[in-house]
């Protein structure tokens, strides 16, 4: 667990340094994710079990870590109430459209052949 946290926080810290020192237009954690992907890319079949376990633990509860920022809806309540129509239409409309646009493009462009394994595990509904 300590090793896993160390690797994850180390990548984030390096990402944070790159973000600040060279004004890379991505936040530290996202640069850290790219860095860790590149590091693990050297031997993709040998991700250390400690790291995989730690990552699994964090990712199983990824939603939890967004909760404190999400409660900010309380702080913005008056503004949202005043302009609820443009906010709601913009939010719902753009989310639905971008979701469909992304799914449509990958659906049309992706090769369908190597999918035998994936299809069997596809959602049934």
């Amino acid at each position, binding site marked *: 667990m300590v090793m896993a*946290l160390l690797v*994850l*926080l180390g990548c984030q810290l390096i990402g944070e340094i790159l973000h600040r020192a060279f004004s890379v*237009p*991505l*936040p*530290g*954690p*996202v640069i850290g*994710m*790219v860095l860790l*992907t590149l590091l*693990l890319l050297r031997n993709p079949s040998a*991700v250390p079990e400690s790291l*995989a376990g*730690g*990552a699994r633990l964090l*990712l199983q509860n*990824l*939603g*939890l*870590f*967004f*909760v*404190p*920022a*999400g*409660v*900010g*809806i*309380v*702080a*913005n309540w008056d*503004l*949202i109430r005043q*302009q609820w*129509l*443009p*906010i709601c*239409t*913009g*939010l719902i*409309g*753009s*989310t639905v*459209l*971008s*979701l*469909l*646009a*992304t*799914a449509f*493009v*990958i*659906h049309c*462009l*992706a090769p369908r052949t190597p999918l035998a394994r*994936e299809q069997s595990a596809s*959602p049934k*509904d």
Partner: protein
Amino acid sequence: MAGDLTRPVLEQLKGTPLFAVTVTLISYQLGVTLQRLCRGISLMNPVLVAILLIGGTLRLTGTSYDAYLAAAQPIAFLLGPATVALAVPIIHNLERLRGMWIAIVLAVALGSLVAAVSGIGLVEFFGGSREIAMSMAPKAATTPIAIAVAQSLDGIPSLTAVLAITSGILAAVSLKFLLGLARIKGWRPLGLAAGTAGSGIGAAHALSLHGTAGAFAGVAVALNGLITSLLVPLLVHFWPK
């Protein structure tokens, strides 16, 4: 008598991390339990349930949001290493990503552009202020990127955070329904769409459905963050005022 005693104790505790973290964990756990009990009802998203419960608790105890946010840092802090950890499902699913990078980049880029253009356009069409439009523009990106871009566009960062998270919840709860409606099947479009339109929360949802979906969502979160931070300021620059 008991009330006289609980009030000062509550006053002392409500600004502490112990109180904020415990309330957050209880609310989220209740959300998870509710989601399990109401299997199939997507609206029972644990993040949404937790936000509502905590919002109510803050009102009841007269705690300000800023005080809560400062005290809940131990939880918010873990968002950083959790984002880095998305590299692991990406690596584990590398085989499935290989050979389709161009398709992935095109799909995420179009999704990102559509989110920004329709976000600004709809807000302005329905009479929203420019401030709201600028807060809406980068909201498809992962929350920290969205906030940074909103700041540079003179939007309202805390509103952008709320919009990014609500958009993630919306994407998570409507994902299966919308893709079913469009007759698009498979974990790859599902994951990529969840990560592009719903960033971290969409990715968390995709990951809870299937590993492949999670990997595609993780890639989409990273790519969309990059594309949004480059593209949206440019788009706004040329957007008619």
